[in-house]
């Protein structure tokens, strides 16, 4: 079963990924440099007004610049998502390796825990954690980390088990190499590409989750600019200002498309 039979991504995928994610990142980072402004500043007279130099994407229903709100939103969700993914990846990696190395009841316990978490819808866990944690952003971070580590754990453990039982690792052990060497030269090169895929996928999942909960009004709170929240706020004005609603919709789609492509186009 080689790459020829299962194309992992679009042939032009890499360029597309770089272009889309680069564009979104550039916008999020450089947006306010190009056009300085405040995502919270209102000018009610400009409610739903069209684009102008100070607000290239026009204004929302409260006369806040969509350009700047979008910049803020495109920093917020990815930041929370990346923080959660980093935490989850670190936890999953460590626990996965520990489980594969130690085996026995440590492994069994971790696997049972991971399996049980797998049975619970991620958004549900995030909702419960949000209800427990004081801050919304920290709540999202904690909740998403709790949900996402399972995937990293499972990947790491499966790969580590296979790799650690492989002749290559047996050979290294027979030759007298210690575990640190084995982990570095045998395990990490096998896990790293999987981690990238899982991280891209996890980031997309996290961003979707934040937006979805924002959209049903149980996520980030107004007036924080957040993608889902922006959409639900602008939905009533669809007829008056369709572009105002489409702006966050398209931005979300671009961001998620880039991440999905980065994750490899297909994944179970």
């Amino acid at each position, binding site marked *: 079963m080689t790459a020829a039979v299962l194309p992992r991504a679009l042939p032009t995928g890499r360029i597309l990924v770089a272009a889309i994610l680069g564009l979104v990142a550039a916008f999020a980072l450089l947006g306010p440099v190009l056009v300085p402004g405040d995502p919270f500043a209102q000018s009610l007279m400009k409610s739903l007004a069209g684009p102008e130099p100070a607000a290239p994407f026009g204004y929302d229903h409260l006369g806040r610049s969509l350009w700047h709100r979008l910049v803020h939103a495109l920093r917020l969700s990815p930041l929370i998502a990346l923080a959660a993914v980093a935490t989850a990846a670190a936890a999953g990696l460590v626990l996965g390796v520990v489980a594969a190395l130690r085996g026995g009841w440590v492994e069994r316990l971790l696997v049972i825990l991971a399996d049980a978490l797998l049975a619970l819808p991620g958004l549900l866990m995030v909702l419960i954690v949000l209800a427990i944690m004081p801050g919304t952003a920290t709540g999202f971070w904690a909740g998403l980390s709790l949900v996402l580590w399972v995937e990293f754990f499972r990947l790491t453990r499966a790969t580590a088990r296979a790799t650690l039982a492989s002749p290559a690792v047996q050979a290294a052990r027979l030759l007298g190499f210690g575990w640190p060497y084995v982990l570095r030269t045998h395990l990490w090169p096998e896990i790293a590409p999987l981690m990238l895929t899982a991280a891209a996928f996890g980031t997309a999942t996290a961003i979707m989750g934040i937006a979805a909960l924002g959209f*049903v009004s149980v996520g980030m709170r107004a007036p924080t600019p957040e993608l889902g929240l922006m959409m639900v706020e602008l939905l009533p004005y669809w007829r008056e200002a369709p572009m105002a609603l489409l702006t966050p919709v398209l931005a979300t789609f671009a961001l998620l498309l880039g991440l999905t492509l980065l994750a490899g186009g297909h994944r179970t």
Partner: protein
Amino acid sequence: MTILVSRLVQAVVVALLVGAATFAMMRSLPGDAAWRIAAGRYGYDNVNVAAAEAVRAELGLDGPWLGAFLQWMGDLFRLDFGVSLVSGQPVIAEIGHQLGASLWLALAAVGLSLVIGPPLGILAGLRPGSLFDRVLLVVSTALKAVPQFLMALILILVLSVQLGWLPAAGYGQPRHFILPAFALALGLAAVNARIARDAMASVGAMPFYAFAQWKGLSRAQVLWRHGLRNVSVPLLTYLGLQFVLLVEGVVVIESIVGWPGIGHALVHAVFARDVPMVQGTALMLGLGFVLVNALIDLLAARIDPRGAR
């Protein structure tokens, strides 16, 4: 047999996790739980000290930590989910109402996704690398990048608001199913199609697939007799995992279109801090996953006799 035992263990741990999480939720409600519950019960116009005190007296919200936890888990394992803090109805009864609505929606969505996804995926998998395969890859990738709530939003804008073809919300008639079911199904179908495509491509590259043709069977006969059955196993297994995705979608979509299902109830319960309802619904969803996957395990074992490994 071992499959079922491990699923049973999974179910028990799911229950433990849900119980612990909801207990923590109960104990750590920001602000006073009695106030929250009173607000959920009596509405913002009428929540006041008197209402909050009435709730506090009724629920006995104060008490020592450990005893309360043991009591909580004990109730859980006796399948006593208690009474909704908001409505005062037994949680079981409320969920009983809502489960049906969600189940129908989920079934409609899964059915629709199976009608759309796997046939296209198998068609693409029969000719890996063909134009059709590449187009399907692009379409399914794009669809996968659209979160379900966004899909619902787009469908509502296009089908309901602009074209006026379908009701944007509501429940009770068959036409109400179409929009939410599609919103859920398109995302599922995008992934289904990929799974089916990869499975088909991989089955198609297997020696037995070529050998069946060498025996003299026609392409269609080989696909029908040897292709579909082998593709169905990974597809089925994946469907089980997809259940979580489906449930998440149901939670979000139900809230958007006002579907009186378990997902809607869950979001509401979280918002109103109706912890027994959160516990009941979460447990139902988690155990639903375990049950569905146990059934799929059994079915897969029937189709694929090679055993679980």
